[in-house]
């Protein structure tokens, strides 16, 4: 039985001007634009419809993401991804110049930069899951710490005063049944009425708390958007790393028998990788700076 030959897997197709694999990747990227576009559209819709004072989180002084996000880490990650795009295109260029070793080195550097991006993202996410917002039933004042207030306006036009604090839960006290009775809470300097030198932890009885939530996806509508969009982008990074590792390991055997085809596959991987970089280029200002 003769093997099926896939046409135009190295030479360009006369109609499209590119080999079939590359055309397939471009069509895939077109569908990816619509995927991220749907999420971007959702983000815009939720933001313009958010009641005043609730974006990015209840009680924030401005509506910018950097109220609760770390711009320095995100800028560092932007630099990592941009650099990885360059090393990716250099990997392909070196393979086309028949320089296999240098091509592989550049591919490895790309994997390392992608991994560095994920490590930074881990620290960003981790900080969010350990930062809390507490909403009180009514005004709270204890041991020199006082709750902040803001007035929320509902879509129906009625107003409601919210008493809240932002900070870190140091520890909890539980009763015999294991139910939390109180929280040892360290308010943020800017929210805890005092400068960083004087702010201290305060005990908050659970009975006075209407809601306590960390800065995870359930923390606010903005945080929900932030985790969904950056999470999906992070999954794309992981997908890219898996593909690149394959071409660094067992996939690289193809170089010995079909170097052109191998270089083409790296080019397709590169197109995907540049798209992942391109998405981040838009996500960075939209989520962190606006």
């Amino acid at each position, binding site marked *: 039985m003769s093997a099926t030959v896939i046409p135009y897997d190295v030479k360009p197709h006369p109609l499209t001007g590119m080999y079939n694999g590359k055309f397939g990747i471009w069509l895939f990227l077109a569908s990816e634009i619509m995927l991220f576009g749907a999420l971007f559209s*959702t983000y815009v819709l939720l933001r313009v*419809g958010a009641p005043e004072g609730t974006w990015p989180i209840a009680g924030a002084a401005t509506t910018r993401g950097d109220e609760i996000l770390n*711009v320095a880490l995100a800028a560092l990650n932007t630099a990592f991804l941009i650099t990885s*795009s360059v090393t990716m295109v250099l990997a392909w260029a070196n393979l086309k110049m028949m320089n296999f070793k240098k091509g592989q080195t550049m591919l490895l550097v790309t994997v390392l930069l992608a991994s560095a991006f994920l490590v930074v993202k881990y620290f960003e996410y981790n900080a969010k899951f350990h930062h809390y917002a507490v909403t009180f039933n009514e005004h709270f004042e204890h041991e020199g710490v006082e709750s902040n207030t803001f007035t929320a306006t509902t879509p129906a036009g009625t107003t409601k005063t919210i008493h809240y604090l932002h900070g870190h839960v140091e520890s909890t006290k539980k009763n015999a049944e294991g139910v939390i009775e109180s929280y040892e809470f360290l308010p943020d300097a800017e929210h805890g009425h005092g400068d960083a030198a004087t702010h201290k932890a305060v005990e908050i009885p659970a009975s006075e708390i209407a809601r306590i939530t960390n800065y995870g996806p359930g923390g606010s509508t903005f945080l929900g958007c932030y985790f969904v969009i950056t999470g999906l982008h992070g999954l794309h990074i992981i997908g890219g790393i898996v593909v690149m590792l394959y071409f660094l390991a067992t996939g690289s055997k193809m170089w010995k028998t079909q170097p052109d085809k191998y270089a083409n596959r790296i080019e397709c991987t590169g197109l995907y990788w540049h798209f992942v970089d391109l998405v981040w280029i838009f996500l960075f*200002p939209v989520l962190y*700076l606006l």
Partner: protein
Amino acid sequence: MGSSAHEIQSHLKKYYMVFGALLVLTGVTVAVAEMHVSIGMAIVIALFVASIKGTLVACYFMHLMEERSMIMWILALCAFFFLLLLLFPVFTVGEQIGGLAEPMRGLSPQ
């Protein structure tokens, strides 16, 4: 794209120049954000700079400039539907953000 070893050698310098431009433009984005200009101006500047960066990545790293127009048309169609996707939902909240859906007001429950 043209991909002989000689042609690719001549492209290397371009890649480094684009790399430098992308880093500088990232710095510009952060610097403008730190200046705390009005939100309208901030959106315009941030998206304008991001669009330049995106265009550089697509044109040089993804070699879009050297592909046939067919792929451009596919992407243009995609961009058109992306804009529809972006604008249609915004029209539905037009009443809240600028009175675009004023005639709908009479239909809302009393």
